[in-house]
């Protein structure tokens, strides 16, 4: 809890900065756009259609789409600007729609009176039409505000710190307090903002300027706090070069990022974490140099980035992946950390015995239900497994990886696509089925360093000892410390434990 509170100021101010910034820009674009198109039926229809279509894109997908777009446009695809852009686009529909509705609802007699009094079209808009439409427009702004604050929690996977960091990390490490803190803070922020905007609206409707200005000022102060609030504070020495360490959204990644961060700090670097990134996003970040170092898996690069559908032995995959990342992105692969985190088809021991399964081959034709993480059933591995072993599952269900293990343990599904370095395989007494046809590609955990960072020999020297230093048993134990329900440890504690083990093993091995 204390650790959470330490992050709260950063995450909250970043969230305010992001959501209020997006809202302000959204208002700044949407109201003038609506005013401009209001008199033209076709344009009106066109603009409304466009903002409506944007709304139908799932928020997470819209955020993720911004990454390649920003990489193409600016070279950098992570963090504040892509997240802000997606949120601005998202905020537009309610504001545009309500501005158009509000303007259309102004009494035609009043508009004609304005013209007859000698108002120019601009004066009529500014002095009569917009003020009369203001309550309706503000209602739209309130809707947009609540949406934006809520959706901003999804900015975490594109590398923008926000209250979503609590939620994403909490979900992955089963730290429900963290999830709750994130949700409660986002909800509180939305309620406060909505109430203040409600005050502005009431002030406008009842023509009570003091109320209007008091609420507007409170919102401005809030935004000011967001802008002025603590930005990411790199850990480590006060001066020295800053490194950005990336991590995807699961426990092992958080722990490894913490281990790498600690090693770099000891070597005199200031370290900034960029966590809970989408799997595709994190590699983009490394390629564009926004992330300096992170751990990926050879099979992931092989299948997702190199688009390879065949498979090969671990050493060949590792060599080809290393060559490919260097040649296409200048990224340096320092080597395997010493363990593999592959997909493994896992079953509860009693179920496996009941079906008589020790390898995937034994599932041929069996009507078993299979659970996978979000990606699994879309990945080439699944196609390969299914066709190689002629699987005919009765059902396939996607889970958040946290809940996937619960699902197999409680018998909701028979088989899951477990991760072989996950501590819960042992904890839940699961059996990983053999892959006699060797269709599941190797997934060695590899240490990747960006093109720029790889020029730094001191950094490479500091990181190299990590290569080959973690075996799968160590990684499973560290993962389980965080993932288990009893005697739960924080990511930092697990990382400290792992570093200690690396150190003692290194000495005894020498």
């Amino acid at each position, binding site marked *: 809890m204390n650790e959470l509170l330490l992050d709260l100021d950063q995450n909250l101010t970043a969230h305010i900065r992001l959501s209020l910034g997006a809202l302000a820009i959204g208002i700044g674009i949407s109201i003038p756009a609506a005013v401009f198109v209001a008199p033209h039926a076709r344009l009106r229809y066109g603009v409304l259609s466009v903002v409506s279509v944007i709304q139908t894109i799932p928020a997470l997908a819209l955020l993720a789409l911004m990454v390649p777009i920003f990489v193409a446009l600016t070279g950098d695809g992570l963090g504040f600007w892509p997240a802000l852009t997606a949120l601005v686009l998202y905020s537009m529909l309610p504001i545009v729609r309500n501005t158009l509705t509000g303007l259309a609802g102004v*009494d035609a*007699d*009043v508009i*004609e*009176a*304005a*013209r*007859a*009094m*000698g*108002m*120019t079209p601009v*004066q009529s808009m500014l002095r*009569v039409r917009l*003020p*009369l439409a203001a309550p309706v427009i503000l209602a739209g702004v309130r809707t947009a505000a609540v949406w934006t604050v809520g959706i901003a929690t999804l900015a975490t996977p594109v590398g923008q710190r926000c209250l979503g960091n609590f939620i994403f990390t909490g979900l992955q490490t089963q730290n429900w307090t963290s999830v709750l803190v994130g949700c409660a803070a986002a909800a509180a922020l939305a309620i406060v903002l909505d109430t203040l905007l409600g005050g502005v609206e009431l002030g406008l409707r009842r*023509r009570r300027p003091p109320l209007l200005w008091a609420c507007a000022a409170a919102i401005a102060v809030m935004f000011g706090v967001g802008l002025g609030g603590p930005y990411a504070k790199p850990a480590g020495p006060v001066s020295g070069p800053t490194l950005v360490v990336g991590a995807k959204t699961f426990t092992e990644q958080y722990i490894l990022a913490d281990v790498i961060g600690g090693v770099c700090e000891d070597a005199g670097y200031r370290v900034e974490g960029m966590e809970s990134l989408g799997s595709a996003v994190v590699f983009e970040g490394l390629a564009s140099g926004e992330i300096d170092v992170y751990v990926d898996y050879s099979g992931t690069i092989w299948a997702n980035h190199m688009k390879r559908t065949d498979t090969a032995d671990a050493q060949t995959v590792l060599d080809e992946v290393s060559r490919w990342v260097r040649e296409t992105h200048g990224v340096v692969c320092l080597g395997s950390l010493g363990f593999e985190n592959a997909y493994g088809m896992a079953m509860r021991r009693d179920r496996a015995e009941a079906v008589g399964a020790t390898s995937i081959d034994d599932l041929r034709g069996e009507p078993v239900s299979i659970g996978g993480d979000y990606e699994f059933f879309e990945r080439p591995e699944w196609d390969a497994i299914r066709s190689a072993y002629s699987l005919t599952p009765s059902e396939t269900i996607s889970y958040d990886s946290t809940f996937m293990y619960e699902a197999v343990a409680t018998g909701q599904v028979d088989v899951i696509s477990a991760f072989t370095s996950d501590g819960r395989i042992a904890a839940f007494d699961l059996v990983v089925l053999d892959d006699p046809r060797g269709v599941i590609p190797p997934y060695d955990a590899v240490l990747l360093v960006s093109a720029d960072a790889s020029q730094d020999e001191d950094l490479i020297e500091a990181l190299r000892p990590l290569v080959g230093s973690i075996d799968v048993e160590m990684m499973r134990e560290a993962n389980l410390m965080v993932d288990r329900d009893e005697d739960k440890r924080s990511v930092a504690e697990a990382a400290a434990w792992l570093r200690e083990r690396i150190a003692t093993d290194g000495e005894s091995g020498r």
Partner: protein
Amino acid sequence: MADPADQDHAGAAIELRGVTMRYVQDAPPAVDQFDLRVPPGELLVLLGESGCGKTTTLKMINRLIEPTSGTILVGGRDIAEADPVGLRRSIGYVFQGVGLFPHLTVGENVGVVPHLMRWERGRTRARTDELLELVGLDPATFRDRDPDELSGGQRQRVGIARALAATPKTMLMDEPLGALDPITRATLQDELRRIHDQCGLTSVMVTHDMTEALMMGDRIGVMKAGRIVGLGTPAELLADPGDPYVERLLATPRREVRRLEALEQGGGAR
């Protein structure tokens, strides 16, 4: 009261020459080959049934709509060559539906045109109070009220004050007393006539009520289907209606008067 300057000048003459307004091609025009001259200082009443083109005629005079053909002169100048915004600010316009701005107070409504013309605050305020008094509303009581806190008659008064704010020489009034009860209406008829004289205006007022036209107009122009079918002072029209339509319109007030006289003489016979 109104600027003394106003009283020195007679209002500006209004002249329509062969004005036609056709909203829809091939349909009969709303206003058809209309000729009319309103000399400075006159209050001309345009009278006719609903849909005969009265509002269309008024709106063309301050260029809210542009005639299909013909020429309109205000103060001797062709308004087609005037800047429409400036023209409208120099002409007071009172609406059929009043059209007060609901988001502005009574005082702010009256001050709209002075504000647009960038008068100083103090001058606008003094003018507002003066006009509220002119239309019989106590400034201290009404200045800061919202339009929806007024009765129909009070709203009409504010509409009249607003039209007069920037000391126009010309007033266009579209059924300004339309939806009022008879007593308020009679009072306001007298006041409007007084204001017209006091401010030295040239006015065109639209009504569909012959009695009102007879009470208020220097001259009455009777319209039918976009044309003038009778034009003259009330006395002239009564003496020689000319057109049967005018005759028919005069029948109602005549009957009322006869009935009243009969009642006053103690008889009850019809």
